[in-house]
């Protein structure tokens, strides 16, 4: 019925093939058969199983993710403080946000900076690592582990480690630079509001590159080797093969990495929260929301308005992602 879509799995049985190399010759045999089969008759018991086990996660997602998001949008038009009753005040929160709330502009700028840093430096770095490590090289496993290790650390831990490295008086960096002695002016990496955002970005990028590397390593495994061979027959060198053949073919992975990069940049929270609570040069949208909502002022309506701004930016990416998936599904 949809022969092309059904062919996909056969071409990229990358994961099982990697686990058992013997599966490889199997691929060719499977192709012609994959095109048939559509939904089969389900018994009453099958329907019951599906209803319960599909219904439960759907309910969770609906109630806790989608309904709460909609509720937040509603709250952003009120002046609710969490205790009394909520009063509808139209777009006053948004007006105040854009005209009379200085941290907002700073936070937007920092989130954009975060996005730019991840997208232009950390993500390409992760891709580079993946390409270098995709071949069988000696110590490959070690390099891979070393580069990936920061990903399993919590950003809170990374925040504490940053303090160890970047502290002004006895931090490692200033000691190495030799600026901690008498009469010197050590750089206050974390305390100086003009510098600290860069320190945090370096640490966030340190983690992000490893994450992107893993995603691309998985993506590169799924690339049909015959494509590379075909390119080589046509006389393409390694660089041309990568940029003209391998990279475009990894489009689904590229999209995922792109979406993850944007989302990580918008969600960034823990690392600045661990370092100084997201103040003094480290303002981020997520921190402003948290401060307004669970802070002492408890300005829930206002905090929700910031959340909606963050949501709108995310929705842009989500819609872009859905469109590409939809196109993929239709083709």
């Amino acid at each position, binding site marked *: 019925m949809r022969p092309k879509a059904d062919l996909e799995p056969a071409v990229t049985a990358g994961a099982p093939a990697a686990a058992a190399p013997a599966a490889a010759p199997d691929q060719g045999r499977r192709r012609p058969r994959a095109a048939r089969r559509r939904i089969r008759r389900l018994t009453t018991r099958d329907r019951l199983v599906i209803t319960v086990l599909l219904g439960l996660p*759907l309910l969770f997602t609906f109630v806790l993710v989608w309904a709460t998001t909609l509720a937040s949008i509603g709250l952003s038009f009120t002046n609710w403080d969490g205790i009394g009753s909520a009063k509808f005040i139209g777009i006053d929160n948004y007006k105040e946000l854009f005209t009379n709330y200085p941290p907002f502009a700073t936070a937007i700028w920092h989130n954009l900076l975060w996005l730019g840093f991840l997208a232009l430096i950390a993500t390409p770095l992760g891709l580079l690592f993946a390409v270098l490590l995709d071949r069988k090289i000696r110590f490959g496993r070690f*390099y891979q582990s070393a580069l990936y290790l920061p990903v399993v*650390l919590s950003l809170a*831990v990374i925040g504490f480690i940053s303090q160890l490295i970047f502290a002004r008086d006895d931090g490692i960096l200033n000691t190495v630079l030799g600026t901690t002695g008498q009469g010197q002016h050590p750089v206050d990496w974390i305390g100086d509001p003009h510098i600290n955002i860069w320190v945090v970005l370096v640490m966030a990028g340190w983690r992000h590159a490893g994450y992107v590397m893993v995603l691309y390593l998985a*993506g590169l495994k799924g690339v049909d080797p015959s494509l590379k061979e075909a390119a*080589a027959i046509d006389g393409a060198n390694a660089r041309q093969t990568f940029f003209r053949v391998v990279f475009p073919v990894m489009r689904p992975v590229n999209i995922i990495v792109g979406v993850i990069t944007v989302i990580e940049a918008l969600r960034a929270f823990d690392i600045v929260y661990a370092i100084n609570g997201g103040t003094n040069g480290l303002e981020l949208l997520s921190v402003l929301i948290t401060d307004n909502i669970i802070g002492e002022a408890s300005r829930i309506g206002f905090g929700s308005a910031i959340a909606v701004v963050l949501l709108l930016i995310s929705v842009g990416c989500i819609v872009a992602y*859905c469109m590409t998936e939809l196109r993929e599904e239709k083709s």
Partner: protein
Amino acid sequence: MTAIAASRAPKATGTKGPGAAVAPRRVGLHVFLAAVSLLWLAPLLLAVYASLRPYQETAKYGYFSWPHHLSFAYYREAFTQSGMAQHFLNTLMIAVPAVLLTLFFASFVAFCIARVRIRGGFFILILFTAGNLLPPQVMVTPVYELFTRIPLPYWMSDSLTMYDSYWGVIAIHIAFQTGFCVFVMTNFMKALPEELREAAIVDGAGVWTQFWRITLPLCRPALAALATLEFAWIYNDFLWALVLMSSGDKMPVTSALNNLKGQYFQDYNLLAAGSVLVALPTVILFFILQRHFIAGLTLGATKG
């Protein structure tokens, strides 16, 4: 044949063995990768190093100096002073059920989408995946309000509500994380061979048997990869516990680090020891499941 030989040529020179002349490009590659790996590990190694040395020593000579005394004293102190044992337990109470249930539900949803091919499967996939991309801060207030209104019996929660109980935190993690897992599992299952399941259907196996006995065992690599990632994410969560719980003794281990922060004086070496202790479980899990990791993440078909 020649094409294969040509494309593999650079690889062959490097792996001929110790006796063969190593191509200069290979040396460059290894120097680069070794340098980057060291740079990537440096912060961790320095944290471990600092945690082994007394504060007086690092304060006097700086962190970048030869050691005079090395001991595990800070680890003992960090472990007892922050009540870490209790907080570790709290984290496990949240992370283990959350990861298991997330993987279970996500696998079944993926099974319905990729194998049973239920109607509307694609939209279910989008619903889950897009939900995972929403910023959690957007949901914070309504989730908080909702949980304070859901009563629970005393044996489930001593706060008598979903708020300030593990149930609430587990529920939100499941709701939020299922999206990513559905996405990965769907792609993985689409790539699985169908023969076994077909044979099972012919033998009269129901949907549950096809899922639990036939399909799920084949998904082990993907489940291992997702288990590592999800455990790390839920383990490292900071926000939800902060928002949805109020009792200090229920907090997960990430917030235990805050107990080590002095009011007037920061002993960074102690903090380093605490950070290493907190990071240890996820690192160990990663090394245990590492073999499956790359193989398990099939992120999308790449057709020619």
